[in-house]
């Protein structure tokens, strides 16, 4: 081990090397936790069967159902009916795969089921210093705990199932420094939308990001997860935050958290993880939290974002031809004019959910703004908790009553309209303010148009029926 100052990323990387990188082969990393869901795993299990292989470490693997699952209400038997035959087949196959290979799995509607990136942290499975992978690009979420976590393809899902290892070339590191204090009404989501607008959707390609600075330190774990979640939208496979007391307090007492003496040992080890003084980063970007205001996207990738008070950029001012083409195409799809303001733009749907913003704190914030108010006529608002546990917690706190009283739909847990695989989708031409992470063409339903924003912006927009700056509707006790 070198005595040079190392980054958080390097420490986690170094401690997971099974075989070092050579001129002929990539490094082979040991994987501490492999999360599996129904959509990106079937072909990997097929590979195992074809080759007569077992899952090497089912005890380091966990399955959940989330992507293609319905979020419609339960029937009289307390069961969530799956009406889509293809989805039903995929879910059955997933159940069989987990059973055959001995993998614990959270089935649809059961107590712990939920979006894969919500349940890991919720169960205390996501811990500092671990390597975590999943056949899902938003695995970067788990980096909020100081884990090295990233999305992999289905072939790699097969590799990890069979060997508990993964081939990787060592990525570069980028320090993302966010100093200052967020103003009231400005949230973690606005920070990450601000960062992506700055670096672009490909700006992080080849890098692992480490988010640092006073604004990151003062965020809750759920805020840090929101930020790390969208690292992939800047092209980075992983984003990390150094663990601190906020991290440890969040993990303490969760079902899979270490207990007693093991806890003390774990925390002592975790305290050695933060980047050393003077550690080298290959690149650095900064964002001033003091100056940040609520952000919103106007285009068809998450990098096409702006302060909510801004105007849609004019393709004629684009720096390159490619950029002009992309912007023209995006505005045509979005039905927007150059120099148009988004504030006041009429909307059809508001979606509160996804692995970016469906945790209990997101729902609490949303409910606090919505309390005593109504969703505007003609606006459909869906609230989709990230997990069954989040749902139960919210119901215990009465949040669901606030949502329902306001006219919003309170649904079962899952990915839902973030990816629109399960029937929760926009109709062609509809505008949505969504707390999810992708505004790609058709992402929320063919022809649907997505404005990505924070839960506060989404709720404020639901109340007014148009894109609204949440600071206008700000409730003082929310500060």
């Amino acid at each position: 081990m070198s005595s040079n100052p190392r980054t958080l990323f390097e420490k986690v990387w170094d401690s997971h090397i099974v075989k070092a990188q050579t001129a002929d082969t990539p490094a082979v990393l040991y994987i501490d936790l492999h999360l599996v869901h129904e959509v990106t795993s079937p072909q990997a299990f097929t590979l195992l069967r074809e080759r007569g292989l077992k899952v090497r470490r089912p005890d380091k693997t966990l399955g959940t159902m989330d992507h293609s699952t319905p979020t419609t209400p339960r029937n009289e038997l307390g069961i969530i009916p799956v009406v889509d035959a293809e989805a039903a087949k995929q879910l059955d196959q997933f159940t069989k795969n987990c059973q055959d290979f001995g993998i614990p799995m959270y089935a649809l509607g059961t107590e712990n089921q939920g979006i894969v990136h919500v349940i890991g942290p919720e169960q205390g499975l996501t811990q500092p210093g671990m390597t975590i992978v999943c056949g899902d690009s938003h695995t970067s979420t788990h980096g909020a705990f100081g884990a090295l976590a990233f999305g992999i393809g289905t072939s790699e899902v097969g590799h990890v199932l069979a060997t508990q290892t993964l081939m990787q070339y060592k990525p570069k590191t980028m320090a993302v420094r966010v100093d200052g204090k967020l103003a009231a009404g400005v949230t973690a989501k606005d920070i990450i939308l601000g960062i992506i607008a700055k670096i672009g959707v490909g700006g992080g390609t080849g890098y692992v990001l480490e988010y640092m600075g006073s604004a990151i330190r003062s965020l809750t774990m759920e805020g840090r997860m929101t930020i790390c979640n969208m690292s992939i939208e800047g092209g980075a496979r992983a984003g990390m935050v150094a663990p601190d007391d906020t991290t440890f307090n969040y993990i303490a007492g969760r079902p899979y958290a270490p207990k007693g003496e093991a806890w003390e040992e774990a925390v002592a080890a975790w305290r050695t993880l933060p980047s050393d003084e003077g550690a080298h980063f290959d690149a650095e970007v900064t964002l001033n939290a003091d100056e940040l205001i609520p952000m919103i996207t106007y285009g068809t990738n998450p990098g096409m974002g702006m302060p909510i008070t801004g105007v849609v950029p004019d393709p004629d001012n684009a720096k390159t031809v490619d950029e002009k083409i992309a912007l023209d195409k995006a505005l045509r799809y979005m039905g927007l004019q150059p120099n148009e303001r988004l504030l006041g733009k009429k909307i059809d749907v508001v979606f509160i959910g996804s692995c970016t913003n469906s945790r209990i704190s997101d729902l609490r914030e949303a409910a606090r703004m919505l309390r005593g108010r109504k969703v505007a006529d003609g606006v459909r608002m869906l609230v989709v908790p990230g997990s069954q546990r989040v749902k139960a917690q919210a119901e215990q706190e009465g949040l669901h009553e606030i949502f329902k009283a306001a006219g919003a739909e309170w649904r079962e847990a899952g990915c839902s309209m973030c990816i629109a695989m399960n029937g929760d989708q926009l109709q062609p031409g509809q505008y949505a303010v969504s707390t999810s992470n992708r505004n790609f063409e058709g992402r929320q339903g063919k022809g649907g148009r997505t404005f990505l924003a924070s839960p506060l912006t989404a709720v404020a927009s639901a109340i007014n029926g148009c894109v609204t700056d949440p600071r206008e509707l700000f409730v003082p006790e929310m500060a």
Partner: protein
Amino acid sequence: MEKITKFTGRIAPLPINDIDTDQIIPARYLKTTDKQGLGQACFFDWRYHADGTPREDFVLNQPQYQGATVLVAGHNFGCGSSREHAPWALMGMGFRAIVSSDFADIFRNNALKNGLLPIIVDEETKQQLISLAQEDPETTVTIDLEAQVLILPDGRSVTFPIDAFSRYCLLNGVDQLGFLLSLEEDVAAYEASHPQRVTTTV
């Protein structure tokens, strides 16, 4: 896996930056449990109107580009999700290589594991290929994996980067899993010296 050494094919131009995997294969087609038939869903929402009729202005629907095996696309191709359905769909549509100035990480990884070559060229070469394909759809390029070059119609060769391991696997038609399986002893040794903390099966 089939061995890949050298092939020649016609090119289709798709000069759009940041083509994301939701365009390459919309999520509603991910409810499959195998890899078959995804070619029909490739670029579905760009290929078809809401009523199911083909969009004639979409380049891959135009007769002159049918049978093209090399797609030349804008930078950061394949951004977004980790779905390996994206390379499966592109291959299902008949593509053997994608040429761009830059690829999203996960897409590139996934493509290499399936024998779909992600070929990175400089901006100028990319633009040249796009113009050539637009002017003459019969234009062909040769991709020589052994020599790691893309050969343009004027005979100019452009070297492209590819990691030694992926290249070896593709040239020999072996999948990458075999290498990991051969490391069983190393993995066991790692496990023995790194006691685990987290267990999902309690």
